[in-house]
């Protein structure tokens, strides 16, 4: 705030904001205090020939505001340390001060790419606390919209992956696909991105004519479009070479690291919450759990291809939902002011990125006492350091993109 008319005051030499000539060269990624933990000490000590490279919060490829400190020896990455918190919004604290209904819009921006899933697990947890039974039509609508969003998320992943590797065209094709699906969902939810659609006890709006017609159009083209998407990059030699063998994650390590979703299925472990702990109407639906990378674990190419496999399964599920859609109400009857019994509930769904769970503690009032959000991308980001041993800087992008992180969920 400068007063108009006043000449610009040059900061004085003891203003900590300016850097004097003898301080040049002290800009390092090393924090300005002694290391507090073993790992910090190990990471922030340099051997001969190593240097720090800071892929800072503003970077074209870190999937959001993520800071990754790389310790490089020439072009080879010796170690890396992700620094989080640039997008931390205190969602859990906000949820403690919100009504149960309000939490649904609080929780949407977590994984903004697939926000219906972010609403699904809290809603399921609250339904357990309230002992509410969701009508079957609502469950089918939830599955239908969820699987549509999963397709959209995986197709967008394809574009992101190519973008991080240097190909500028596929992301635009992904957005064409995503745009169609998102317009469809906008017809019933009223929103293109942060849907705020699921409610405790059901969903907000019924399927309408516009949605059905758009969905019909899309379904008639879906299989062919999926073939085209597969063929877009799979046979590109450069693309495949950049991903094959990079970031190999074996099954035992994946389980120990808490990986879930496509990342663990690409390492050969068939763990999918929809089959491991079925919820909603998934027991009635027929679909397979594709896995890849049986022996030796899965590399980035396996993770990429697996998500494409999952898209065909999702299209199958959508088809079945359409055929078996029951009639009935879309919301259970609930009082407007919700006061669940004191207690605890945990619910988990299979989000496009992995196992997304909510642990809700209620104390009998109209606001939850504690709401813990377990986000899959948070756990997967730990894997980057593990998978990046002695790869090159360019592979950091390949590995990180193949794990498909979304910073909103990581930073909560």
């Amino acid at each position, binding site marked *: 705030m400068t007063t108009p008319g006043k000449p610009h005051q040059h900061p004085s030499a003891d203003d900590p904001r300016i850097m004097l000539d003898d301080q040049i060269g002290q800009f390092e990624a090393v924090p300005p205090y002694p290391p507090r933990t073993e790992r910090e000490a190990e990471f922030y000590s340099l051997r001969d020939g190593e240097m720090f490279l800071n892929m800072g919060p503003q970077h074209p490829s870190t999937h959001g505001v993520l800071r990754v400190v790389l310790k490089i020896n020439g072009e080879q990455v010796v170690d890396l340390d992700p620094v989080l918190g640039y997008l931390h919004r205190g969602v859990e604290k906000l949820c403690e001060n919100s009504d149960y209904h309000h939490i649904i819009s609080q929780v949407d921006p977590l994984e903004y790419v697939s926000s219906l899933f972010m609403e699904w697990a809290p809603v399921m947890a609250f339904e357990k606390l309230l002992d509410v039974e969701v009508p079957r039509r609502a469950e089918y609508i939830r599955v239908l919209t969820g699987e549509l969003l999963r397709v959209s998320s995986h197709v967008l992943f394809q574009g992101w992956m*190519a973008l991080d590797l*240097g190909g500028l065209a596929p992301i635009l094709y992904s957005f064409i696909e995503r745009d169609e699906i998102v317009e469809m969902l906008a017809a019933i939810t009223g929103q293109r991105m942060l849907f705020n659609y699921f409610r405790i006890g059901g969903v907000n709006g019924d399927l309408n004519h516009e949605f059905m017609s758009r969905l019909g159009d899309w379904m008639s083209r879906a299989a062919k479009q999926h073939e085209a998407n597969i063929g877009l990059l799979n046979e590109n030699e450069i693309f495949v070479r950049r991903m094959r063998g990079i970031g190999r994650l074996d099954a035992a390590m994946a389980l120990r690291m808490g990986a879930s979703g496509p990342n663990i299925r690409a390492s050969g472990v068939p763990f999918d919450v929809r089959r491991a702990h079925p919820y909603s109407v998934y027991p009635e639906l027929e679909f397979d759990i594709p896995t890849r990378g049986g022996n030796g674990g899965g590399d980035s190419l396996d993770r990429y291809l697996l998500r494409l496999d999952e898209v065909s399964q999702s299209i199958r599920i959508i088809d079945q939902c359409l055929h078996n859609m029951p009639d009935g109400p879309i919301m259970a009857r609930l009082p407007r002011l919700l006061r669940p019994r004191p207690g605890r509930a945990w619910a988990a769904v299979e989000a496009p990125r992995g196992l997304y769970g909510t642990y809700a503690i209620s104390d009998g009032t109209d606001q939850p006492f504690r709401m813990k959000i377990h986000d899959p991308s948070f756990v997967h980001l730990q894997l980057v350091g593990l998978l990046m041993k002695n790869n090159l800087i360019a592979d950091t992008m390949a590995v990180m993109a193949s794990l498909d992180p979304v910073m909103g969920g990581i930073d909560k």
Partner: protein
Amino acid sequence: MTTLNRAWGHLTLTGKVVIPLLFLALVVGPIVTIFLATVVGPWLADVLGANPEIVRFVVAITGVLLFSIPAAFIIIYMELKVIAFMNLRIGPDRVGPKGALHSVVAGLKVLTKEDFTPTGADRLVFTWAPVIVFLTAVMVFLVIPFGPGLVGQDLNIGLLYLFAVGGMTVVGLLLAGWSSFNKYSLLGGLRSAAQVISYEIPLTLSVVGLILLAGTMSVYKIAEAQQGWFTDWYVFRQPLGALIFFIAATAEANRTPFDLTEADSEIVAGFATEYSGMRFGFLFFAEYVNVFIISALMTTLFFGAWNAPIDINSILARVGLSPVSVSLDPGSLGIGLLILLLVAPVLLTLIFAAPFYLSRSSRPAWQALVLGFLVFNLVGVMLLGLLAYIGWPWMAGLTWFMLKSFLFVYVFVWMRGTFPRVRIDQLMGFAWKWLLPAALLNLFVTAAAIIIVKS
């Protein structure tokens, strides 16, 4: 007199200086002009006339330098538009018709941006590195023949000069990366040094076969040697050489898929991270001038330079007709020329306006006349172009050269919109393990073939 005094009193200090100077210029100006025209002029003309080579050289260089900027503008616009269409987008469409003036405005933009040197950067090197990059890119234009007789200087070591000067770009890139006091720039500069040096060797080796075939290192003579039909072009005699040259040239110019020096999803902008303003403009334009140069080289060395694919005169000679030529003598018309120049535009406008006027009854007459005038202009330009093409061989040569060069530019832009990037170790492996042996193989086979054919 009092009015003048009062007027003088009203003037500010600046006015009191400028107005008298203006009057002085009005009086002195004609005298100086007459002096220059009568005394200095003939002397200058004599001096220049005695050294036509220097004049020609200076004119050629000026022309080439002036051409490089519009060429870069065109290529930038092409890149943005073509990649946009490949991405199912529209690209620039605001400035100028269909966004055609976008690059001009981009050029103005880099001129007006804040031009600062980051703290800790080596100021001298930081300032001069983009200049080195740009200069070495533009210096290559000296030996590229744009048409028969349209070459800056016909050096008989033209190819050697080309690769020597073009290879100095890496010095500029390294200096830019090093002096920026930024780790991203450092990485970018080092990557670019490794890349350019690795691909320099297959690049040079791939044209040695060509040198053997043509018997000369002069680029102009290589272009001349490809006269005739398109089967005379060197690409059919050195297909492997052409392919290696194409790939190595893409890497030399830091184009996708070898653009990791400016990989903007990994190291932000590589060596150019800390540059802004006109310094960045230099680097930016140098890249696109480089694209034009490698396209021009591809055309010149392998695809016939300025030669048309079919030789019309040889077809006509076989049929028995004389070659196409045009001999115009407008002076012989005498006063008829004046009448022609006055009457023809009006008449032709009316003739071309008639269909527009008659086809739609609601069209006002003035609109039809305007459209007719436009069509007349178009037809006139086309006719004149045709006359120039037939009459002046350099015009035909220039047209074909530009067509072919921009076709290759289109191919490079197409590759940028399609391919992802290779990794540095894959890139170096490819150069040393595949391109270098292939280039050597090409060389040996060519040399062996020449010996066998000669004996």
